[in-house]
Each structure stands twice: as structure tokens, then as C-alpha cells.
């Protein structure tokens, strides 16, 4: 469903991703693991169209989407939930969610999508009139996931959703990702530093170090020693 071939991302003279290739099949949950600065976020942002890759290809459902702007990537059914629970703080929770259904293909299903999001995250329904800026970190992350779901995606990408959150909140979010994947049949690609949690829900995993994929395979087949060695380069 999603195939990334030899992707390169540069920031000026600095090469953040030197050659990354991953493939995620329809209905899979995949994770990209790695330390800070390994190039995971740059990889996702390049796939999502937030930054233009310096080389390589991105294919989604056999269509090349390399370098397409983010809004066109979303229209094709590929949505990114950014790091840090990014939302529109001055807008209400309801308006934040409705912004998610801005793409034309999502508008006819907006009401149904809204009900699904409220079903997944009842706290968002309780706080639907509150400004998003007043939500806690975990609730903001839920809102960011809900907003991405409003676009009726076929594949959801999560950029370190556990970053800076309490363990209880992380557990809730992971349970929701599992539900989204199972009930909505949405393909999931997540970037994580928390290897244990990510591996537990992944079908396939990739380990990134210094801008390259250094290990990949079925999550159940990767030993912790292998991952540790690839993760830290030891």
C-alpha cells in the first residue's frame, strides 16, 4: 500500500535521511524505531508532503506521490498525526475536528466520522465547545488523531504520539490505535522511540540509525538483542 524507495532528505548541507526504503502492506501496522536524530520524523514528513525529498520515491496505492504537497497527500488518503498533539489552540474542539474533514472527499461523511471520533474519544465530546488550547497533553493527542480520522484516511501515520505523555495516557492512546486499526481497517505506520510498546502492536518494524534503515522484518521475529544492536549501532 505504501512503498518508500531510497528516500533522501536534506536540510541544506545536512543529510537527515540518506537512504530509507520501507514497505507497508494494506491492513498492516508498521513501526519505524530509532533514537533521536535518526531521521524518523524527516522520513514521515517527506512521505506526508511537508518537506520535499532530495531523492528517492514514495508510492501510495501504486501511485507515485513523491514531492506532492501535504494537502494533496491527504486527499489520496494518507494522513499524518504530527508530534506533540498539534492542534489549533484558539478554535474549539468541535471546529478542530471539522477542519479535519476539509478535504472534499471527507465532507459528505463528516457527521459519521465525528460520531466515530466521539465514540473513540468520549472526552472530546464532553469538551467539544472548549478551546483546544485548554486540553491536556493526552487530550490534545486524541484531538490530533481524531482530526486525522475526520479526513477518512486509508493509512494513518503517527509521529511519536507517546512523546512527553504520562504512561496511563500512552496506554490509552495505544489502545485507541489498536481499535482504529482493527475496527476501521486503517493501515498504520508509526514512528516511535518506545520500542517495546511499538513492537507489541506492530506486524512489521524498521529500525533507523543515522538516516538509514539498518534492520527490518516482522515485529514478532525481531529479537530484543537484534533491535538493541541496530538501535544503538553496537
Amino acid at each position, binding site marked *: 500500500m505504501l512503498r518508500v524507495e531510497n528516500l533522501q532528505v536534506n536540510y541544506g548541507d545536512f543529510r537527515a535521511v540518506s537512504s530509507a526504503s520501507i514497505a507497508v502492506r494494506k491492513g498492516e501496522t508498521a513501526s519505524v524505531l530509532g533514537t533521536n536524530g535518526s531521521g524518523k520524523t524527516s522520513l514521515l514528513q517527506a512521505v506526508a508532503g511537508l518537506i520535499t525529498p532530495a531523492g528517492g520515491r514514495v508510492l501510495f496505492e501504486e501511485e507515485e506521490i513523491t514531492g506532492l504537497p501535504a494537502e494533496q497527500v491527504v486527499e489520496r488518503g494518507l494522513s499524518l498525526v504530527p508530534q506533540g498533539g498539534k492542534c489549533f489552540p484558539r*478554535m474549539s474542539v468541535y471546529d478542530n475536528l471539522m477542519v479535519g474533514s476539509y478535504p472534499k472527499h471527507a465532507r459528505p461523511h463528516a457527521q459519521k466520522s465525528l460520531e466515530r471520533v466521539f465514540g473513540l474519544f468520549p472526552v472530546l465530546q464532553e469538551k467539544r465547545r472548549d478551546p483546544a488550547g485548554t486540553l491536556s497533553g493526552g487530550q490534545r493527542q486524541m484531538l490530533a488523531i481524531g482530526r486525522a480520522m475526520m479526513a477518512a484516511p486509508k493509512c494513518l501515520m503517527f509521529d511519536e504520539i507517546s512523546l512527553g505523555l504520562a504512561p496511563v495516557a500512552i496506554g490509552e492512546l495505544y489502545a485507541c490505535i489498536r481499535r482504529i486499526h482493527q475496527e476501521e481497517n486503517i493501515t498504520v505506520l508509526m514512528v516511535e522511540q518506545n520500542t517495546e510498546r511499538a513492537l507489541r502492536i506492530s506486524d512489521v518494524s524498521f529500525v533507523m540509525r543515522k538516516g538509514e534503515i539498518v534492520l527490518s522484518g516482522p515485529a514478532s521475529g525481531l529479537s530484543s538483542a537484534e533491535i538493541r544492536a541496530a538501535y544503538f549501532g553496537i
Partner: protein
Amino acid sequence: MGFLQLLINGLLLGGVYALIGLGMTLVFGIVGLTNLAHGELVILGAYASTLLASALGVDPILTLAVTLPCMYALGYALQTLLINRAMEKGNEAALLVTFGLSIILQDGMLLLLSADARHAATAYGTTTLRAGGLNIPLLNLVMFGISLVFVAGLAFFLNRSYTGRAIRAVSDDRDTARLSGINVRKIYAVAMGVATAGAAAAGLCVGMKWTFYPSSGGQYLLTAFLVTVIGGMGSIPGTLLAGLSFGLAQVIGGANYGLLISYGVMLLVLAVRPAATSWQ
């Protein structure tokens, strides 16, 4: 009674000032750009309404049916074809483009329409309503109504439509807006279109109330700038309140002290609350 009369005069006039400032604050809050051509766009709106009303022999207000969509299209095209491209080089380049645009518009109007003073005459321009010992100029009341309708319509559009929500989202966080499927450059064009349509409505009021020339844009740019700063560069109620306070200052201070009071308020606002916020 004298104070109440001043208050009413000031508030009614303030509605027009709010309308003049609305377009500038909208563009500043969403596009992040100070549109130095805003004053000329107001005057272009005034000319359009005055000439159209005269040619068709109708009340100038009815010309809004033509000028609003035309000026929206003009603003949309300017942003798409000119300003968005300049913004790729940075906001300074875009600022210079709007400066150049103001000169082209002013000289273009001078060339095509002469330097003669113009005025959009109405049948009720000198009519005064009397109620409870108060004199209320009908024209001021009509202009206040136009301002309120435009402001309320804009608030409704921003709060209830997909595009309105997208405009507010872009103003809050552009990258997150893009990840929600919003084409930011298109939203900039819509915002500029709405702001230019606002300039058309403001221009109609200017044309009905005062005489104007091709070179009058500068004074309305200053008015818009003042209202934008006092209003906090980011809210409909703020812009409305700023416009009303500017109107009051003009009436209370008169020709000698009106501007002095207004600029004093602006300096005070800049000193107390210097940080601009985004459009909401």
C-alpha cells in the same frame, strides 16, 4: 444630551472605520502581510460604486451586488498571481509588491479617472432623523448598518463554513493546517479576496460620506493601520471596537484633536499589548 449626541455620532461613524480596518486585519492575521495597497483598494471600491451608480442611475448601495464579487475576484487574483509568488522570496518581497501595487493603482486611477474630487450622491445624504431630542444622520445610520451586516456575515462565514474554519486554522498553525488537507496558498487568496471585498464595502461608505480623489488612499491606509493595531490584529470584536473608538475620538476631538487622540490610543495599545495575535 450633548454627550449622548456625540456618542451616537461617534459610534455610527466608527462602524465605517471598523469596515476600513477589517480587510487589513484579516490579511495581516491570516497571510501575515501588511497590505500597503489597502487604502487604494478602498478608493478603487469608492470609484467603482460612484461610477456604477451614476451610470445606472441607482442608489450606490445597490452597486455592492456588482462591486463585492468583482473586488473579491480582484483580491483573489492579486494574491494568486502576484503576492503568493512574491511570498516565496519572503514577506519583505511581498510587502514591496503591495507598495508597488498601491502606486500602480493610484497612478492608474489618476490616469483614467482624473484628479477631480468625486462623491457618491444619495437621496438621503442630508436627511436627519430626530428622536428624543437627538439628531441622527440617516446616511451614517445606513453606513453603520452596512458595516454591521458585513462584519456579521464575515463572522458567520469564519465560524460556520469549511472555508472559514480553514482560514482560522491557517491563521493558527500553517503546517498542521496543511496536514488537514488545506491548501494554504488558496486560503491566502480567499482571505485576500474577502479583504478586498471588504474594501469595496468600505469604499462605498467613503464615497457616500466624503469626497475622494485617486490620492486619498493614504489616509485610509493609516486609518486601517490604526484600527488594526488598536483592535489587536486578530479579532472581529476587536476590530469593531477599535473602529468605534476611532469614530468616537474623531467626533470628540474634532478636526484638531481627533487624530491626536487616536494615535495616542494606538501608542498606548502598542506599549501595553505589543504582541499581535492571529485572526480568530
